[in-house]
């Protein structure tokens, strides 16, 4: 390739996108290093898909600039397209063609050198374990197989950056972990940068770095470990007979700010296990149950946005409108 290997795989400056009055992405900045697995994490409607659409040249930014694989997403659109692989949320396969025919179509559209096509098709199909199904029509495939085939297709033209928009959404847990298996294998087998969006907290753990995005802005970017360490506190959830009274009591006696999340009084303290005995002794009201958990990315999300990802989705009616607008 012609671009500098050490240059950022993705570099974004002040990127914005508005749909009429509504500003979906409010100026984001970040860089993704070559070879990195970079996760975009946030509730539906936070601006993830809109950002990824702009980086994939499917939507034109209203402001700011971005370079992908060293090329400008607006002025060098075709170069960007040639150097990226895409796996969308919704399938984009032709069900009437066989798996191999779908890949062959892709190879020709992307101009993969003819003498390499057959070998490369076999290689990517073997990677996702579909080689023995190459002659089956795609309409006979399960959801997970289709997604695997799409990942194989996204890799066919040896892209520098692979974009995965919610690669595991709508799949059962077993298939989800299989997909992650392929993605992990892939980072070792191919010289590639992976940029993905997800709203599953547990999946974000697989990333080298995570950007948390909420309401069109990046709240924080760091590695999962550093993010969890930055929270530095355990999460305690208690069930009581009177949540209001419990919150007031926590504030008065311990100086702790608590709130109701997912139906339980939730708060964070530096070391949960040591706090629990004091809690029972000093709260002055009956506690029905208690749970203490180590900081997870959920807590990170909550720490930075003040809400859990599920609450954020439940409260955001705009999410679906956004998705439809971002789609084409």
């Amino acid at each position, binding site marked *: 390739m*012609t*671009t*500098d290997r050490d*240059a*950022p795989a993705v*570099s974004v*400056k002040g990127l914005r996108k508005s749909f009429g009055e509504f500003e979906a992405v409010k100026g984001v900045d970040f*860089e993704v290093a070559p070879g990195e697995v970079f996760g975009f994490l946030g509730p539906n409607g936070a601006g993830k898909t809109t950002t990824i659409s702009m980086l*994939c*040249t*499917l939507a*034109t930014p209203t402001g700011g600039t971005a*370079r992908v694989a*060293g*090329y400008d997403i607006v002025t*060098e659109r*075709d*170069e960007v*397209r*040639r150097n990226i692989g*895409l796996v*969308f949320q*919704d*399938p*984009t*396969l*032709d*069900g*009437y*063609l066989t798996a191999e*025919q779908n890949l*062959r*179509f*892709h190879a*020709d*559209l*992307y*101009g993969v050198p003819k003498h390499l096509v057959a070998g490369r098709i076999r290689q990517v199909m073997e990677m996702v374990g579909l080689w023995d199904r190459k002659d089956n029509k795609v309409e006979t495939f399960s959801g997970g197989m289709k997604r695997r085939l799409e990942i194989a297709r996204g890799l066919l033209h040896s892209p520098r950056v692979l974009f995965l928009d919610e690669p595991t959404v709508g799949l059962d847990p077993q298939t989800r972990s299989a997909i992650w298996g392929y993605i992990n294998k892939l980072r070792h087998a191919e010289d590639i940068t992976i940029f993905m969006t997800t709203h599953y907290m547990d999946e974000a753990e697989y990333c080298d770095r995570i950007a948390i995005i909420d309401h069109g802005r990046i709240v924080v970017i760091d590695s999962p470990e550093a993010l969890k360490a930055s929270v530095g506190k355990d999460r305690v959830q208690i069930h009581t007979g009177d949540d209001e009274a419990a919150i007031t009591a926590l504030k008065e006696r311990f100086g702790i700010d608590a709130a109701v999340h997912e139906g339980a009084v939730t708060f964070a303290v530096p070391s949960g296990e040591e706090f629990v005995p004091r809690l029972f002794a000093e709260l002055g009201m009956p506690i029905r149950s208690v749970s203490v958990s180590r900081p997870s990315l959920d807590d990170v999300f909550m720490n930075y946005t003040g809400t859990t990802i599920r609450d954020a989705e439940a409260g955001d009616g705009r999410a679906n409108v956004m998705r439809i607008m971002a789609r*084409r």
Partner: protein
Amino acid sequence: MATEVVSVRVPLRGTGHNLRAVKIVLHREMLRFVNDRTRMVSMLLQPVLWLFVMGTGLGTLVQGSIPGVDFRTFMYPGMISMTVIMTAMFSAGSIVWDREFGFLREMLVAPVSRGAIVIGKCLGGALVATGQGVIILAMAGLVGVPYDPVLIVTLLAEMFLAAFTITAFGTTLAARIRNMQSFFGIMQMAIMPMMFLSGAMFPLSSLPSWLHVLTTINPLTYAVDPMRQAVFAHLDVTPQVNAMLNPGVNWFGWQLPVALELGLVAVGGVVLLGAAIAQFRRAD
């Protein structure tokens, strides 16, 4: 961090790459057609019904006024056009299908020009429709049309041209339509009147003047007439019958030569193709 990237530009997309894209889009069109037997049969059934059921029925009625000619022979070129037109529209409609099922996106994000994709689609539609027409062509003997090599080649070329223009027309329509139902609704609305007014089903001679005006502004007329002229040139009929069944297209009393008619269809095809490409470019 600086984003200075020293890069030698990869050569812009070449003609070779775009040709390859045209070819694969076309190839897919063929594969889809060959795999879809139901569509092939249903597209054939309609003209065969018209030709052998309606043609035979009406034929007994008009037999006296057209001595020496089977009415089905008259209908034959019209039915070739009908088959070709229906198949071509169907091919164009598959763009809407592709959009509904997401595959259009796979094509639109590829690093090839939108023009290559639209051209591939139109050529594919035209080839498939011509292939379908070949089956009708094979029935020539049943309605008294000779299997003359010159006639066959002429008809094939005319079919291809008509099919290409119709696919381009359908693609322009399909570019903005989001679901199959609306496409078929609009297609019926556009195609049925054009079909009736094209001379495919009844001769355009001695029509009332309002109807005559409608037939001359109908673009399909110029696609159907050359085929009829070609067929009648290989028949042995009296001048009166020829004048009645094969009057040609008249502009203020001047009969258009076949070459001009074909030219009009070709120009229409190119304009519609341009319109279709523009539609897909705009869809960014």
